[in-house]
């Protein structure tokens, strides 16, 4: 049985050593930063591609974000996702409830649209939480609205396409928790579920020809409103350079002895 899989991603800045906030406190200063998707979502994309390689079927990648988020859709399509859906927003913030509502609407219309090969998504994949806002809820809200089961924090996923079931594992203190559940379902994954591949040049070329559906969703007012961003005060540590190269080793041993980690 072929599968129909949707994976949802979010465009986020590639942060390096530190974050700076714009003067109005409304955004991260991204003038010198590139963009990517959250690490968990890179793995969600990889998982979708692997599922279709194994079972056949089709994949779509969806993002809610500015027009430039087409780059992130194309990155996913370069890895083998078939088509893209852009829920294009302006400059305003979309809180998790508003984001989930727009995604639910997009899923419903994609599943209903027979002309675009519409059929139910057996699996809708999310990252467990976005790297930037860390809201921990969009996938669960989407699942609840669609009336589908949701397993979060998944680090191993086994699908039985013929039986229409899946089993998932996630980390728990001292081991793993196992879940068995029927499809269709929503699964939020964590980095470590797989090792994502790198895009190939032919993959990038093919991605440019793949279809992207653009939708301008209506924004619903959510209950979480950003007021201001600020960087927390870090305790400054005055670094003591013990030396250069192997010559520094005796001083390192002194430090280890002082900390009591040698005994």
């Amino acid at each position, binding site marked *: 049985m072929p599968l129909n899989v949707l994976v949802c991603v979010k465009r986020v800045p590639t*942060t*390096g*050593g*530190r*974050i700076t*906030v714009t003067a109005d406190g409304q955004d*991260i200063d991204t003038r010198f930063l590139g963009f990517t998707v959250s*690490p968990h979502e890179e793995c969600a994309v990889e998982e979708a591609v692997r599922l279709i390689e194994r079972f056949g079927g089709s994949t779509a990648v969806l993002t809610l974000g500015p027009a430039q988020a087409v780059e992130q859709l194309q990155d996913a399509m370069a890895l083998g996702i078939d088509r893209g859906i852009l829920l294009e927003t302006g400059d305003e913030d979309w809180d*998790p*409830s508003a984001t*989930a509502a727009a995604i639910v609407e997009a899923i419903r219309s994609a599943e209903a649209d027979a002309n675009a090969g519409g059929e139910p998504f057996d699996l809708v994949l999310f990252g467990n*939480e976005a*790297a*930037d*806002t*860390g809201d*921990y*809820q969009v996938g*669960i*809200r989407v699942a*609840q*609205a669609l*009336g589908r*089961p*949701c397993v*979060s*924090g998944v680090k191993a996923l086994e699908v039985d396409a013929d039986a229409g079931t899946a089993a998932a*594992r996630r980390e728990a203190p*001292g081991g*793993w*928790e*196992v*879940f068995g*559940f029927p499809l269709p379902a929503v699964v939020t994954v*964590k*980095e*470590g579920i797989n*090792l994502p591949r790198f895009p190939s040049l032919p993959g990038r070329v093919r991605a440019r020809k793949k279809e992207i559906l653009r939708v301008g969703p209506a924004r619903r007012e*959510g*209950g*979480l*409103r950003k*007021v201001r*961003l*600020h*960087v*927390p005060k870090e305790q400054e*540590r005055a*670094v*003591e350079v*013990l*030396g*250069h190269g*192997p010559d520094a*080793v005796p001083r*390192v041993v002194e*430090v*280890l002895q002082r900390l009591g*980690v*040698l005994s």
Partner: protein
Amino acid sequence: MIVGFVEHEGGQVLEASLQAITLGRRLAEQLGGPFHAVAVGADAAAGADRLGPFGVTSVHVVDHERLDAFAPAAWAQGLVEVIEAVGAATVVAAGTERGNEVMAHAGARLGAPMAANCVDVAAEAGDADGSLRVTRQRWGGSLLEDAELAGPVRILTVAPHAIRAEEASASVAATPSVERVTPALTDADLIVRVTGRVEAGTGGVSLAEARVVVGGGRGVGGADGFAELEELAELLGGAVGCSRVATSLGWRPHADQVGQTGTRIAPDLYIACGISGAMQHIVGCRSAKHVLAINTDPEAPMVTRADWAVIGDLHTILPALVGAIRQARTAATGVP
């Protein structure tokens, strides 16, 4: 009315829940009104005595014959029934995996907003509809967001370790009453439930609990280069960790990753070898008591955030260090 959702292990309340309860009580003191707790499982009643000193006056124990295994949607349903029965306007839980998960399910069921991983909360001054001002973590805590949380029911989780668990003053401490609640669960609430457990292997020291962690990044140069780090970690009774680069390149398994999307470590000493110190990594090792960085670049963020640094190539420094530690041991014990 404020309700705190409490996680427990056989009636033993988790520290992260006590932290969340502490923040919830402070809000209750500001707003006036009672402060109740909710916990799931028959054995939760055993934790009620622990909650009294934290200002909880009543504990609602959600219990059901089909709730023997963790089921996020069913737990959320139990919580929702308590919220509706007592008329709670604010719900506070720990920002643990389960805490965030169950709260998100409850928020979805109630159509209520949720702010995850808060570090502070206060009622908006003079705001009649009772919206809250929260400060919450973004980017794993590298950035903070002041936000407004508004709605008839407002849900927030508290970032673990962000605030200290503190009992209330003695005057409010009392033994809370225990109310039993049997939620009306449907089959749909129980589709996703833990159906099995796999215990982790017992080999070696766990990264999250190790006293010493030796971490490697891009500077290690490849999978083979980690042999030197493993040798050092073994000598120190520690564990090997790595940066995200090392897992993305397939040098190390993801279980070794220290960072925002990996393990958060809290050792006495973190020895960071060839790690530049990207924010995603710093989030994971922020709780290390001491940091020693070994790096060719004296300006690398990992170096400037360290207590001690050795500048140079880790592949010449580590073998010398391992040799010196062996020698020091032999000198001390006479046993090579």
